[in-house]
């Protein structure tokens, strides 16, 4: 109850005219920035941080919070329309979002993404409001051993993306792990696979790599398909015009969307709270979990359930990540670290005492997240009809446009040409792989998850002096292990039973 009283006081702060103003500004800027591939929430917040110095801390963090939040919405736009995930949490959105847009339902795909983002986010904020500091303590229970098992669970999502040829899928997963291990070893600082090259010392930067593998590879593919596309366009004059009404999901769509959204919202929030995981792991765990439930269309072919599971989880995780930040002063993600830097510059001391010493600030931020969530949804719905026009642009114009977007996105990650080179190289490699039947999605997921898995697993082994017992010595770990085992064993058991069943009927 006390929390709700504080929340109401927080709304008084958040609903002050200047705070509503900056919240709206943050929502619009966040959508724009999030929709641009390459400039994720991290860069967006870092770029806008200096703008907020003139504000008072509460107003400033409200703007940054709205920005961070809206970014998660924006990231799905380019993922669905162009198959270029703007940010790592959007990878899983692209898996179903892009096929669905190609099926002629781009409006519904965007709408699903936005609505499930909204619901997932709301679930996250509600949980944050009710438990506040308690949630952060749950996060503390997860050490390296627990994180290792969680990451293994997230890794199982790769198996669903491998495609028809398992060997090719495994090869490409290994390639992703290999590429991820370039650079400095996170625990010992020793360089790996850098071949004396100073650039490789810092590893392969994530955003240019993903923009190249997915976005630029797409461009090369489009160049090949150009003529076919023009012929198709010439014959297909009755191009339908999409309005906001046409983009509305039907009642049936909403029914399909709701269960995964609710599940992912809750799971995503908890994943967001865990140290060092954030929205990316959130969306992958959400997506992996959805595979275990029934979807009307197979996942990966444009299923509404897939988009909903991924988007709801990543927005919920974005909200959940605020719990350790506010309650313990621990940033749950890179963006959290930038926000933390901001807090310190404004003279606030983030840490376990923040809720006691600056309640107006903490609760103002939490309540502004409700406001930001609604604003972002409204703005996003209004721009959908304009966004889907992108799809009716002829391919010959799309090729240079997407190329430009790819170059700008790759450049902006570290403000250097190195990113652009990485983007071009991985684009060409990505195209060749795709052309030869190697799916690139497993590579990207392995690239993101493998370093985290390695880091946590090695920490666990250091602490246990190499004993595997550390993964099974508490009830929490046993539960997580059981979930993991169920996930990997069900398909095997099912296959065996099917085989046995098949034999019986044959006999």
């Amino acid at each position, binding site marked *: 109850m006390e929390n709700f009283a504080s929340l109401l006081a927080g709304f008084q702060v958040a609903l002050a005219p200047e705070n509503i103003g900056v919240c709206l500004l943050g929502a619009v800027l966040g959508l724009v920035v999030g929709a641009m591939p390459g400039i994720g929430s991290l860069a967006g*917040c*870092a*770029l806008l*941080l200096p703008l907020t110095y003139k504000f008072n801390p509460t107003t400033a963090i409200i703007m940054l919070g709205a920005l961070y939040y809206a970014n998660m919405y924006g990231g799905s736009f380019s993922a669905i329309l162009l198959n270029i995930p703007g940010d790592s949490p959007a990878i899983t959105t692209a898996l179903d979002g892009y096929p669905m847009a190609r099926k002629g339902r781009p409006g519904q795909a965007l709408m699903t993404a936005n609505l499930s983002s909204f619901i997932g986010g709301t679930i996250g904020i509600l949980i944050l409001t009710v438990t506040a500091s308690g949630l952060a303590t749950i996060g*503390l*229970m*997860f*050490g*390296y051993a627990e994180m290792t098992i969680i990451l293994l669970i997230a890794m199982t999502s790769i198996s669903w993306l491998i495609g028809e040829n398992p060997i090719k899928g495994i090869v490409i997963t290994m390639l992703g792990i290999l590429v991820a291990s370039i*650079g*400095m070893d*996170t*625990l*010992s*600082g020793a*360089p790996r696979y850098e071949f004396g090259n*100073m*650039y*490789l*010392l*810092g*590893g392969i*930067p994530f955003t240019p790599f993903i923009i190249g593998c997915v976005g630029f590879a797409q461009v090369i593919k489009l160049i090949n398909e150009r003529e076919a596309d023009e012929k198709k366009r010439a014959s297909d004059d009755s191009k339908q015009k999409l309005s906001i009404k046409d983009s509305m999901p039907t009642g049936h769509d909403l029914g399909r969307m709701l269960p995964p959204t609710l599940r992912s919202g809750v799971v995503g929030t908890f994943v967001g709270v865990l*140290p*060092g995981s954030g929205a990316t792991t959130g969306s992958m765990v959400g997506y992996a979990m959805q595979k275990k439930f029934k979807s009307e269309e197979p996942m990966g072919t444009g299923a509404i359930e897939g988009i909903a599971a991924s988007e709801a989880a990543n927005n919920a995780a974005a909200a959940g990540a605020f719990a*350790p930040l506010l309650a*313990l*002063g*621990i*940033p749950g993600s890179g963006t959290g*670290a*930038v926000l*933390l*830097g*901001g807090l*310190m*510059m404004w*003279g606030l*001391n*983030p*840490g*376990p*005492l923040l809720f006691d010493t600056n309640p107006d600030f903490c609760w103002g931020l939490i309540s502004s997240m409700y406001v930001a969530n609604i604003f972002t949804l409204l703005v996003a719905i209004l721009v959908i009809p304009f966004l889907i026009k992108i799809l009716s642009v002829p391919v010959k114009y799309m*090729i*240079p446009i997407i190329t430009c977007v790819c170059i700008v996105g790759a450049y902006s990650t*570290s*403000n*250097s040409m*190195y990113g652009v080179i990485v983007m071009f190289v991985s684009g060409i490699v990505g195209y060749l792989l795709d052309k030869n039947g190697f799916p690139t999605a497993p590579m990207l997921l392995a690239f993101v998850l493998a370093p985290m898995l390695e880091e946590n697993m090695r*920490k666990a082994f*250091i*602490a246990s*002096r190499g004993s595997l017992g550390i993964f099974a010595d*508490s009830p929490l770990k046993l539960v997580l292990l059981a979930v993991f085992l169920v996930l990997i064993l069900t398909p095997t058991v099912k296959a065996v039973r099917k085989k046995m069943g098949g034999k019986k009927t044959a006999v």
Partner: protein
Amino acid sequence: MKKLMALTLAALLLLALTACGGNSGGGNSGGDGTFTPSKTVTWTCTSSAGGGSDIFSRKISEIMTNEGLVNGQTIVVSNETDGAGEIGRNKIATMKAGDADYNLLTFNSGDLMPMVQNTKNRAANFRILAIMAVDKQLLFSCPASDSKTDYAKAGGSQDDFAAAIEAAKNGTFVVIGGSKGDDITTYNKLLAEVGLTDAQMSYITYDSTGDAITAALGGNVDFVISKPAAASQYVESGDLTPVLALATERYSGNLADAPTLSEIGDYENVEVPVWRGVAAPASMSDAAVAFWSDALGKVAGTDAWHKEYLELNQLLDQYMDTAAATTYVTDYEADYMAENGIS
């Protein structure tokens, strides 16, 4: 298609040309041997925006601009994180004279260590303009956390580091957590001083001190190395207990309870200074070096620097001019290389 290719090429060439053009322009070392900046100054920070080094760089440039120390010119902070920062440092090290007068670099002990480990660049490839602040570390523990480690499960005392040393010698495994760079060096020195091996008392590297403190709060490590500023709030709230001052004398305030190493046994005190400094290209003219070293000295004397930076981050005020800083950094590097067997 050919047309498009030609256009793209033309655009790229144009870009390249403008990029080259931007780099030209000479320095302004006046005829009388003094230097006054007459164009925009670039301040390279090899860490990402929002972190400690970034705040350090931006604070100094803000004070320099506000106090009118740079002849009304702007200072642009550029975050160059390619190659874990080595690309940015190498660019400064190899910069040609002229431009060199307008380029500054944030250079900390945490930058020097990986640079010396992984590249051929040494402190001698830069002009060290000043040391602006020094930090030291402490060892903290979280007695209230769940017992997850061997030492905690064996009932080891988390308030008493001497007991942990004894336990480690008798075969109970002790785990220390901390950040990269400086903290690892401190851990190695501590280990050598108390005569343990890393199989008896191990170290887990975290991405940041914040992550390491999280691990301590969750009971995943027994002790955590941190600078005072990062741990201060947790000490105040009672979550962390300071157990050992990694310094030659005790700290003051709420950290005063932590003894130094020589107080808890027959050991020498372990102190590894963590310094924050400013460097410049080796080819920077002497006049410009004198100008910048002096300007940084003026910054170190301002109220804004003391209140908004040093006090806020609980750092020691330890300005050194270019001569003193160069000797200091050179000695530090020689020590570090000797300890790690780098030639």
